[in-house]
């Protein structure tokens, strides 16, 4: 288990690790601090254009989780959740933050008590045992325990490399089952503001801050905020859509990356988008200027 902070360039360089952690079922937490742009981009201005790359990172198919920080409280909670999820499900977890969040000054009265650490370890016979949840026994190596191989070759339950067709399919299914188990245990996104309002903004990350400011200035909107981005819960979003609300995607990037992830998971196509990608964060005026 490891915590590794990156910016986009470093993240690209190290993506092999995510894939390797995926198949070996090694808990891994990565903090990806986003700034704007491809390549070297605009050092050092803000943006949120690595959401898609985080969700789609690593070759091959394997479960992972992506969480998205928006301020000091969410950073404090989500980094703890990230470790608990990584260890419980034995998957890579990417925590997205942004230059705007990392370099902002927030004031808080207090922070909640620390979460209970969940290491999810238990002894077993086979390291990659097939279970209903997809979660296999994993024990911290120690002298008095049975040794095992963490294998990035496709493997059977005993971690032996395999080219057997049935074993390949069964182990792939076992791993992916963890994503379904995790999704069942993740919360729906939070709806802020006036739930009766006709206009609902949808976003993640630092966009929450100016939107909540606009709401406290009296703007009559609701705001659906994603912290647990992937695997993706969509019931609240789909309820809002089917009740005829006007839905506006608000993002600090060019192509609506959160929107693409939500569309893939829900089938809903966003009709209205406010996208800002000039290196500056979304400001209060950007939100107040929305015609509602």
């Amino acid at each position, binding site marked *: 288990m490891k915590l590794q902070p990156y910016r986009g360039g470093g993240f690209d360089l190290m993506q092999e690790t995510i894939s390797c952690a995926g198949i070996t079922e090694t808990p891994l937490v990565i903090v990806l601090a986003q700034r704007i742009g491809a390549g070297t981009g605009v050092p050092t201005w803000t943006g949120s254009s690595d959401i898609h790359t985080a969700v789609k990172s690593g070759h091959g198919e394997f479960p992972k989780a992506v969480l998205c920080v928006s301020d000091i409280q969410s950073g404090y909670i989500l980094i703890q959740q990230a470790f608990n999820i990584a260890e419980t499900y034995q998957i890579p977890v990417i925590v997205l933050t942004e230059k705007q969040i990392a370099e902002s000054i927030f004031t808080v009265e207090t922070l909640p008590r620390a979460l209970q650490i969940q290491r999810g370890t238990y002894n077993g016979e086979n390291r990659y045992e097939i279970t209903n949840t997809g979660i296999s026994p994993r024990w911290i190596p120690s002298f008095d325990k049975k040794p095992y191989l963490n294998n990035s*070759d496709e493997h059977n339950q005993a971690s032996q490399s395999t080219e057997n067709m049935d074993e390949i399919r069964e182990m792939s299914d076992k791993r992916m089952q963890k994503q379904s188990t995790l999704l069942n245990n993740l919360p729906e996104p939070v709806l802020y503001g006036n739930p009766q309002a006709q206009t609902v903004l949808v976003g993640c990350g630092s966009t929450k801050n100016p939107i909540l400011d606009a709401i406290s200035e009296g703007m009559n909107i609701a705001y659906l905020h994603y912290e647990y981005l992937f695997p993706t819960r969509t019931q609240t979003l789909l309820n809002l859509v089917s009740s005829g609300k006007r839905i506006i995607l608000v993002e600090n990037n060019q192509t609506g990356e959160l929107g693409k992830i939500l569309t893939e998971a829900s089938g809903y196509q966003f009709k209205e988008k406010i996208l800002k990608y000039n290196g500056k964060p979304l400001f209060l005026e950007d939100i107040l200027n929305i015609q509602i």
Partner: protein
Amino acid sequence: MAIDLNEYNSNLKPTWCPGCGNFLIHMSLKKALSELDITPSQTYIAFDIGCNGNGADKINTYAFKGLHGRAIPLAAGLHLANRKFTVIADLGDGACFHEGLDHLIHAIRSNYDITILIHNNQNFALTTGQATLTTDEEKPMYGLPDSKPERTLEPSEIILSPNPSFYARGYSGDMQQLTELIKAGIQNKGCSVIEIMQLCPTYNEECTPQWFMQRIHKVEDSANTLEEARKIGTITNENINTGIIYRNTELETYYELQENRKDSQSELVDEVNQYDIQKLFDQFK
């Protein structure tokens, strides 16, 4: 009392070609562990990807078979998490001197207390015999029928330039010597690099056991200076020296240089705990 060698075996049979040097390298490693009384549960091997790495599920110890070129960083991490384990990085010449060359340099200069076994069969064997930097310059290889355009480099030059605490060269055909070298490498405090001249009858068919026997000379005493070590380490058409080539016992290990870990009795892996950070918050009040 040496541990029964069968304890280090899984129930799988190796898949290497007949005559492959990997058989005896693995046997030497197991013998070394056994003679040092290091049990399978006290050993952590980081395997690379290649013919060498195909032995990962044939040995019964804690192990991590990761990615091509990445055995050394895995070994470094395993060691830093828990110094009590005997940590071995097991990789090929392709992995070590191409994809993962930076890791070799940094492991030596950081002087992690690990042992690096380089299976030098002078080619990328698993991918059917492409040229590595150790392949002979004139030798036609897969995809390079007119031989490689690049120069050949000496592993000893690369290994010696960051000043290792231990550098030895063994030969897969001499299990007795190789076992002793691996034992000495494991016992050395610091980063021990063991380059193993490995028979690969499939893609390096010229270098037969006879070819090696004509060239190999065992050195008795290791060099005390890098200059001397370079002389002993250099491979010529007529001569390949094996044995412990260089030792530097003056070097402190990475862990010894960590000021904040100086008095710690526990291992990092045991320190995952619920810490009260309220005092830290109070500073901001």
